[in-house]
C-alpha cells in the first residue's frame, strides 16, 4: 500500500510563559491510501499541532512530512488542492451564508461553483445554505466545515473532531459518509475522542501522548497487542469459587477472586479452564473472554484513566518510556 501521509521525527516546541513547552517530540505517523485512519490522543497531546503543521499553519522545529508523496511544507501549494481539512472547531466568517462561504472558497481554489451545491447537499445543509453562519448551531457549523473540506473532492480528507456538536443522527450520517468516501477511494484521517466511533469506522489508528506516538497500526492489531487475555468465570455454586481459584492457580493460571466470579489472566485457551474445573466437579456457568476495547487501550497507553478522588491535569499523560509500550 502507498502511504499518503508520512511523518517522521516531527518536533515542535512552543514558547510559553512557564518556559518552553514541547508539543511534538519526535512524532511519527503513517497513513496508507484508501484507509480510514483514527488519530487519537488526550487533550494537549499534540494532535492539533500535528494537523496544523501538516497543513503549513505551524512551522515545525524539525522533522520530515510527506503528503501524497510530496515533501511538505515545501510542496504544499502543489498538493493542497488534493487535501481537504478541518482543524479544530469550524471557523468561518459569521456574517456570510454557507453558500457564500463555500462559493468564496471554491473561487480561491479555482473550483467550479457547481461543487458548492453538491457539498451542501452532501452534508445536509442545502435548505439552510442561504442563512448566515452565525445563526447556525455548532453541529451545523461542523457540517459546513466538513462540506468545505469535501469541496475539493480531495484524495486525503483530514477531519479534526468532525462529530463535535452533531446529534446522534448526524454522527451516524457522518460515519456512513466517511465509509462511503473511503469506499470511493478517498483516504480519511479522523481525529476524535469518540473512541467507539473510531473503533467502528477506522481501519487503523495512531495514538499520541505528550507529542509522541504510543501506538499505531490496524485497529484489530492494536487491540490484540494490548489485550490481557482475561477470562471471567462464574460457577454454578458461588461457594465453590475459593476451591476453583486454588485449582486454577495450581494449573498456572493467574487468578483474581471477586465475590461472584473469578478473573483469570493470560489464558490462551479458555476451554482449558472448563476442563480443569470439571475434572474436580466444579461446574462453570459462565466463561467469558474479556477483550479490550479502544477506550481501554487509549486510557492505558495515555495514562488518562480517571482516578477516584483525583483531578487529572491535562499534562498528566504518560510518556511512552513510562508505560513501556513500544510504539
Amino acid at each position, binding site marked *: 500500500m502507498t502511504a499518503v501521509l508520512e511523518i517522521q521525527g516531527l518536533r515542535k516546541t512552543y514558547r510559553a510563559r512557564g518556559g518552553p513547552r514541547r508539543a511534538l517530540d519526535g512524532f511519527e505517523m503513517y497513513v496508507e491510501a484508501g484507509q480510514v485512519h483514527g488519530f487519537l490522543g488526550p487533550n494537549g497531546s499534540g494532535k492539533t499541532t500535528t494537523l496544523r503543521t501538516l497543513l503549513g*499553519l505551524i512551522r515545525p522545529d524539525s522533522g520530515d512530512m510527506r503528503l501524497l508523496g510530496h515533501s511538505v511544507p515545501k510542496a504544499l501549494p502543489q498538493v*493542497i488542492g488534493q487535501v481537504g481539512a478541518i*482543524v479544530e472547531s469550524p*471557523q*468561518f466568517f459569521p456574517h456570510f451564508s454557507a453558500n457564500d462561504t463555500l462559493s468564496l472558497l471554491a*473561487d*480561491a481554489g479555482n473550483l467550479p461553483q457547481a461543487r458548492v451545491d453538491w457539498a451542501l447537499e452532501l452534508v445536509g445543509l442545502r435548505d439552510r445554505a442561504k442563512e448566515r453562519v452565525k445563526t447556525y448551531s455548532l453541529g451545523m457549523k461542523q457540517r459546513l466545515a466538513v462540506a468545505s473540506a469535501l469541496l475539493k473532492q480531495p484524495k486525503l480528507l483530514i477531519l479534526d473532531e468532525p462529530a463535535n456538536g452533531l446529534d446522534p443522527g448526524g454522527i451516524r450520517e457522518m460515519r456512513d459518509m466517511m465509509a462511503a468516501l473511503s469506499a470511493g477511494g478517498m483516504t480519511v484521517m479522523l481525529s476524535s475522542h469518540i473512541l467507539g466511533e473510531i473503533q467502528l469506522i477506522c481501519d487503523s489508528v495512531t495514538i499520541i501522548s505528550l507529542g509522541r506516538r504510543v501506538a499505531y497500526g490496524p485497529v484489530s492489531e492494536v487491540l490484540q497487542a494490548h489485550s490481557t487475555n482475561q477470562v471471567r468465570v462464574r460457577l454454578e455454586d458461588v461457594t465453590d469459587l475459593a476451591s476453583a481459584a486454588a485449582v486454577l492457580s495450581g494449573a498456572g493460571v493467574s487468578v483474581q477472586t471477586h465475590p461472584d466470579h473469578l478473573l483469570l489472566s493470560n489464558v490462551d485457551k479458555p476451554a482449558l479452564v472448563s476442563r480443569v474445573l470439571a475434572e474436580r466437579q466444579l461446574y462453570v456457568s459462565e466463561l467469558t473472554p474479556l477483550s479490550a476495547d479502544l477506550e481501554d487501550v487509549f486510557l492505558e497507553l495515555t495514562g488518562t484513566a480517571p482516578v477516584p478522588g483525583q483531578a487529572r491535569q491535562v499534562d498528566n499523560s504518560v510518556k511512552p518510556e513510562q508505560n513501556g509500550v513500544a510504539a
Partner: protein
Amino acid sequence: MSLVRAERRRFLKRRLIKWLLVIAVALLAIIATAVFFSNQKVDAATIAAAEAQADQEYQQQVMYWEQRHQVCGTVKEGTPEAEMCTYDLKPQRSDIRAEWYMPATFGFKANFEPLTMVWAAIIAVIAFVIGASFVGAEWSTGAMMSLLTWQPRRMRVLGTKLAVLAGWLTGIGVVTFGLWTGALWLIARLRGDTDGMTAGTWQSFGLTGLRGLGLILAMGIVGFLLASIGRHTGVALGVALAVVIVGQVGLTIVLTMLQVPYFGMYLLPMHLLAWMQKSFVVGNEFANCANPNGCEEVVKTLTWQGTGSIMLGVTVLLAVLAFWQIRRRDVA
C-alpha cells in the same frame, strides 16, 4: 487569478464595508446639502441692493466720524481722549464692501479645494476602517486560517488581499471624488458661480484630487497592515486611537510645555494640511524676539513632498513588518 476573484467578491460581500460606504456617502450628501442651502445665487438686483446698503452704511460711518472729529478738536493733549483721537481716520467707501450685505454665494473656484479636503478626510477615515476590517475580521473569526488551508502561500494571500483592497479603494476614491466634484459644480451653478475656471485651475484641482486619493489609499493600506500585524481589527483601531489621543493631544501638551520650536511639524493634522494644500506654514510661538539681531526665523514650511515621503516610509515599514510576520509567525 482565482484568489483575486475570491477576494474581490469577499470585499463586496462584507456588510460592514457596505455600511461604511453608505455612511460616507450620506455624510458627503449632508455636507453638500448644507452647503447648497446656506448659499444663494447672486443676481444684478441683489448686487445693486447690496451696493446701496453699503453706500448707506458708508454715509452713516462718515456721519459718526464727523461727530467724533468735532469732539477731537476740543480735547486736551495728553488725555486718554486725545490718545483715541490719534486714530481719527475718515472712513473710505472702499472700506465698506458690498459683499457684506449679500447672501453667501458658492464660488466653485474658491471653495473647491477646502471642500475637497473634507471629502478626502471622510473617505480616508472610512478607508482606514475598511482596510483594518477587511483583514482583521478574517483573522479574528478564523476565516483566514480556513483560507490558508486552501492557499498555503501566505505572502501571496496577504499580497492579493492588499492589492484587491487598494484596487477597491482606488475605485471608491475615484467615484466619490467624481460625485463630489459634480455635486460642488451643481451647487455652484445653482447657488453661486463657476467663474474663473481655466484649464490650469482644473489641472490644479485634479492634482488635489490625486493627493486626496493618495491619502485615502495610504490610510486604507495602513489600517490593513496594522490589523494584519495584530491579527485583529481592534489592533488597528486601537493604534489609530492611540495616535490621535497620545500622539496628537498628548504630544501637543508635552511639546508646548517643553517650548519646542515649530512643534506643529510633529503633528499629524499639519502634515495632512501640507499634503492636501501642497504646503503648510508652521509658526514658532517660542521665537526669541529679544535677540539684538531681531527675531529668530518664525515660520517653517511643510511641503507635500516631505509629508508624502514620511507617509510612504511609514507605509513601507508597516508592509515589511506585516509580510515578514505572516511568513514567520504560526497560525494558531
